[in-house]
């Protein structure tokens, strides 16, 4: 699914303008990471897309169809969002109920619902937990259930809104592995909203947001090199890239090999 933001502006009140003439095009099947510090407006984008907030100015197009309050119901059928807090999005009494919720709302036949639950729980390696209650699951497991729920809706666009920021390292790893898997196996458009550069490193493209404006846009390697831009946006480049940069003007043994190795390790950690 192609997503296009055309001159979008949004403000919660007169004092705090969150998005200013925001332009961004995301191509079909592309994985884009939207990076920004706390309060940069990145989560507002997700809320606008789900129709939880209404834009003041500008338009958003999903496959050339404009998104507004009249079309939002239809548009929601094509996208799923995974939020930050795993506890806030678990609606079922068991894992099975939770995934069934969205599908029942779509009024799918019972057979189809059960099939999809099985299929997508297997995909996120949670098939053994089908009858478990949410309190029996870890944060990472709950997020994986949320991902299965989103996948089960078979929507073309998936938005991850800081979906690892409340998880421990193990949970973070689980969710990131899952995003990578979805990227590789399914032809889905993925938007990852995060302030964690490691999570952005396997995206096709990174967009950096500061005060509601796009300050840079490029491949992970291009963006990681823009150390000043990242720092001015409240972010930090990857440690390996930062080391290369700090030692740029110094002479040391194996300089070329070390630089090459550090670049390689940036993407293959």
């Amino acid at each position: 699914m192609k997503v296009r933001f055309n001159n979008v502006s949004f403000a919660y009140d007169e004092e705090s303008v969150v998005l200013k003439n925001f332009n961004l095009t995301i191509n079909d099947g592309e994985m884009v990471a939207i990076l920004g510090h706390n309060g940069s407006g990145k989560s507002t984008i997700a809320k606008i897309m789900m129709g939880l907030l209404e834009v003041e100015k500008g338009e958003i197009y999903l496959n050339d169809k404009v998104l507004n309050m009249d079309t939002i119901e239809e548009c929601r059928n094509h996208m799923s969002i995974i939020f930050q807090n795993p506890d806030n999005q678990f609606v079922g009494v068991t894992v099975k109920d939770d995934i069934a919720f969205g599908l029942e709302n779509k009024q799918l036949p019972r057979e189809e619902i059960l099939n999809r639950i099985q299929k997508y729980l297997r995909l996120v390696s949670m098939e053994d937990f089908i009858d478990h209650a949410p309190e029996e699951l870890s944060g990472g497991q709950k997020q994986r259930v949320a991902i299965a729920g989103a996948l089960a809706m078979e929507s073309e666009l998936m938005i991850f809104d800081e979906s690892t920021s409340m998880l421990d390292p193990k949970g973070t790893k689980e969710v990131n592995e899952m995003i990578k898997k979805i990227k590789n196996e399914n032809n889905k458009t993925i938007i990852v909203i995060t302030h964690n550069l490691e999570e952005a490193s396997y995206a096709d493209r990174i967009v950096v947001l500061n005060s509601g404006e796009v300050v840079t846009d490029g491949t992970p390697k291009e963006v990681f090199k823009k150390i000043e831009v990242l720092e001015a946006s409240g972010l930090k480049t990857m440690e390996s890239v930062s080391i290369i940069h700090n030692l740029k003007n110094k002479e040391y043994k194996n300089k070329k090999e070390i630089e090459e190795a550090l670049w390689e390790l940036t993407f293959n950690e």
Partner: protein
Amino acid sequence: MGINFQRVSYKYSYNAPLTLKEVSLDISSKDEFICILGHTGSGKSTLVQNMNALLLPTSGQITVFDKNVVKVVKHPYKLNTKKNRLKYNFIDNKKLFARGNKIVYSSNLKVLRKHIGLVFQFPEYQLFESTVLKDVMFGPKNFGLSDDEARRAAKHACNIVGLPKDVLEKSPFSLSGGQMRRVAIAGILALNPDIIVLDEPTVGLDPKGKDELMNLLVSIQKETSKTIIMITHDMNVVGKYAKRVIVMDQGNVVFDGNKRDLFEDIDRLHKFNLDLPTSSSLAVKLKERGLINYTHLPLSKEELETVILGGDIYE
């Protein structure tokens, strides 16, 4: 002495397994910077909640600033009767001995909590007042300070955490996540505790917010020599800032010591389900490829740069 745990065990309910298993610890009242590590469910949060008596031990003895947290038995000779009410107190060692551990009258946990300030996980969710200043004043007022005294303490605390003056009269809910967290920490600092305990203070903050918060904690410690204890999952924070590391696993303290000793034994580290700091893991890989050499494993970016430039790390 700050905090002493003697074979402390804890379980959440009668039938539950032990969350802490005979933990013994000694934490000094000054100059410590301790990181508590361990994966989810290892007992870290239970441990720190025992430190300021939010949870009370199932067995064992906790001593805080030379006072014992004791179970008070009103009828010490009828332990098993239903009428017997158990209460907890925080009392002087001497008094405890003088009374032969039998009957103590007043509950005094508030005094203990004045010694030890606990900042919870996602503390910004606990803000509730109409203005930042009022929110920070809430704690001191609760501890019996007058309005004026509380206001002074609150303003001082807001100053320490770097909140600009114009923020003080704003609603805390109009602030960014990082700033809200500062307000919550100021609320604890306003009580002027001797030891500050923080449960995952950097989680959810962006890189700049994280650096600012860690630098703030370091400067508080430098200026006041207060002991700081923090739970964290972030190995980069441990590698850069910790002076002492405690690792919890299944309710046991499995490591208590120097961070370098922890990170240099990689097999044991993996056994604890912990990772290396990013720089250390880069260093290991560069060494494997024969590109750098070191005797001490670099634990931070600065240390790795020193090693790449041909230097070595000295203790």
